[in-house]
């Protein structure tokens, strides 16, 4: 059941050549290392999102260097790489750090490890070093290698966004709105509701800017969306009241109003209200009345996102699990037959966020996502289990990104 390293080894064995992205990175690094004329032999250590990716890149680079007449060995990454390089008989060390997002990026340094007899206690790290860096567009095989450490339930980020929006996304939902049996994607962003098909093409748009303004609107882009019985239920924290929309062709038509925002959707939905002037929700029933960043509800499960960066996951039979470091982008997601929590990090304004998939077991597949994850939603279009993310990008706009489970 758990392919893990065996799966990755099989992948490598099945592929007669390493992934082209890694070859490109190794070629760029080889040129830079050769240009610096290091003293041979050279030890290569690479730190990567997965051990197998690190080993692959280090092996590739060492092979390339040896092929160019520079004897090289691969050593494992770590704090003590210098002493291990010396122990392996190397006179120079290449230390690399790899990241896999929309690009494969490798950066690091080349420095001598030979200790001068006269150096005494002077650390060798202060010696002259050459900076190395290389990037290449990511390919699928590299993504799979990068996810290799997650023991068989890895996550991969689709290279291209499903759609882009001019402003931050405030809420996401997926579900069938036109009755064709295929899910649509609904997005609340910039005071408008957007409905997209599975390819990310806009089917309909509907402005909410004419709605009466809330007495104290929230500054952050905030609201809830729910697709239920062919209706799209919209609650926007800048409007006084919620609305229900129906998709008729390429038009979203307003129907009778609604009581307000909810946690989750459908039968399990928990009614809530917006906290005036803040991007917070408050449940209107039950004992828990503290302001929340948001949350989710599914039959038997409830997820409450607390403003201290923790989350309370209420499971069937009332068992409560406390999750740490959970950001505002988090949801309950049915994943290969069990309920899980997909969660962003609670860090303030990260340039790169990460999505974790928390379950009952010890494993926590994680995938880095460029930008800040604002929302997470189950049921992204496409094959296999997949999650839809609303991500705030550095240019002030936002993107819909899809994270898939490894096949």
């Amino acid at each position, binding site marked *: 059941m758990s392919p893990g390293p065996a799966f990755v080894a099989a992948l490598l064995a099945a592929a007669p050549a390493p992934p082209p992205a890694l070859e490109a990175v190794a070629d760029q690094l080889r040129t830079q290392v050769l240009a610096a004329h290091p003293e041979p032999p050279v030890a290569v250590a690479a730190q990567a999102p997965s051990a197998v990716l690190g080993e692959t890149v280090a092996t590739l680079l060492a092979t390339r260097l040896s092929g160019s007449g520079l004897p090289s060995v691969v050593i494992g990454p770590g704090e003590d790489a210098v002493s291990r390089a010396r122990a392996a008989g190397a006179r120079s060390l290449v230390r690399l750090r790899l990241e896999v997002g929309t690009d494969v990026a490798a950066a690091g340094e080349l420095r001598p490890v030979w200790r001068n007899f006269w150096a005494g206690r002077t650390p060798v790290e202060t010696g002259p070093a050459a900076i190395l860096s290389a990037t290449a567009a990511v390919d699928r095989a590299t993504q799979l290698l990068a996810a290799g450490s997650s023991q068989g339930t890895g996550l991969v980020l689709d290279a291209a966004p499903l759609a882009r929006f*001019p*402003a931050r996304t405030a809420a996401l939902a997926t579900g069938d709105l036109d009755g064709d049996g295929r899910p649509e994607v609904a997005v609340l962003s*910039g*005071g408008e509701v957007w409905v997209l098909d599975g390819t990310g093409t806009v089917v309909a748009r509907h*402005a909410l*800017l*004419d*709605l*009466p*303004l809330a*007495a*104290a*609107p*929230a*500054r*952050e882009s905030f609201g809830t969306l729910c697709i239920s019985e062919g209706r799209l239920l919209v609650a926007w924290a*800048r409007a006084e009241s919620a609305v229900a929309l129906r998709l008729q062709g390429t038009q979203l038509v307003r129907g009778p109003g609604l009581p307000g925002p909810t946690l989750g959707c459908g039968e399990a939905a928990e009614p809530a209200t917006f906290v*005036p*002037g*803040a*991007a*917070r929700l408050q449940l209107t029933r039950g004992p828990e009345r503290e302001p929340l*960043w948001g949350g989710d509800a599914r039959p038997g499960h409830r997820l409450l996102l607390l*403003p*201290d*960066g*923790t989350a309370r996951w209420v499971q069937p039979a009332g068992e409560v699990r406390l999750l*740490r*470091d959970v*950001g*505002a*982008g988090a949801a309950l997601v049915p994943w290969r037959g069990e309920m899980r929590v997909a969660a*962003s*990090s*609670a*860090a*303030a*304004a990260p340039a790169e966020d990460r999505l974790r998939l928390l379950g009952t077991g010890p494993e926590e597949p994680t995938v880095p996502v460029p930008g*800040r994850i604002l929302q997470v939603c189950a049921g992204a279009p496409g094959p296999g289990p997949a999650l839809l993310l609303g991500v705030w990008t550095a*240019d*002030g*706009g936002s993107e819909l990104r899809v994270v898939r489970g490894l096949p």
Partner: protein
Amino acid sequence: MRRIALGLLLVGAVPSAATAAARARDGGTFRLAVLPEVRADRWGDTPEGAVLRSLVAAPLCRLDAGGRVQPVLATLQRSADGVSVVARPGARSPSGAPLGAAELARAWGRALDRSPVARAALAPVRDLAAALEQSRGRGALVLPLAYPWPDLEATLCHPALSPVTGDGPGDGIGPYALDGADRGRAVPSFPEGRPHPDGFVLTTLSRRAAQRAFESRTTHVLLGDGGDASASALFATYLVSRPAARALVGLAESRLDRGSLVRSFVGAPAMAMPGLLPPALGGPDRGTASGAPARGSGTAVLMYATDRPAQRAVAQRLQILLRDAGVQLTLAPRTPEALDRDWRAGQGDLALRSVLLPPAPAAALGVVLELTGDAAEARRELAPLGAVADAGERAARARERALQLAATLPVLPLYSEGLRARVDPSLVDVRRDGFGLWMLDDAWWP
């Protein structure tokens, strides 16, 4: 055993509540330090003044760095022959009066009297006076266009058109309401939501004192000092001239080294602007070689805006250059409002004009043409540009036309400046808009 227990404790403590801040926190006081010249810029004509003013007088819309228009106080709707400006519900002045079409028309009427940028932005409107007059009693301000002008929405977001309902700059509609001269308090009913801090405090300091305050972190934002050379520099300064004084401009130009003018008298972040459009808008960054320094004679009056240290220094430099050429230049300082009024009334022979250009080349060329004061010529030039529907092609045509017009317009480009500001790096969610200005509305600290 003890070591294991300690390890467990550390693991539990890693994602501490103190750093958890995926959503903004409300509260605290936003502290700003400004230099005296920024404080003196009452109407926010300079980039620094515009950033400060936007706290209490928001623009109609936001033009983001990607060129997208987001409604703030009004939504803009295109129709077959123009654009309708509809105030958003909830856009109210501090006194509680809603922003209607009539209030907007009155505010623009005052801006037109004062600002060449406002006049240029509304120049494509057919019979502007009638359009503003007809707004009375209507829900929307309808702007019919005299010729196609696709950049209108972007230019309506210019801070010069931020609606101010009364006579003072504090009578705008902003995320903060003035609470005395140096304080503002968050407005809970602002259409874009209250800002995260509860209020702001403004301190006017000398450059040295402001730098010290920023370095000791007793202020979050310093306006008037520092800046980022890589950000777009759209605050452009030109030397405009009367027909009789064109020869003097030629004398000055033959002796002018824009690069050293910027280095010695303007200061970073700024760059020489040899073309009518600044390098940030694709204008040339290198001028053509001018001939040998020529000589002339006579006297002339150069008007410049007082309270703008760079303008004063550049005016004095021009005085020296022209004295060396045999011309006696008299300097006439004016307040920015008086400078615009007096120049249009025919006073002076030369004037220094600084304008924050819109980030679209065709619209920026419109501002340059407005500085010449020749409305008919502006219309002749802009109508063909507006007819080009594709934004990239329109920008390319505008750049090309700007190069051709440089030799004939009575406008000598000098330099362009970026926003002089420093922002505490611990502040979150501070971004630049399309004009290169910091948007401080969303700022908060974790």
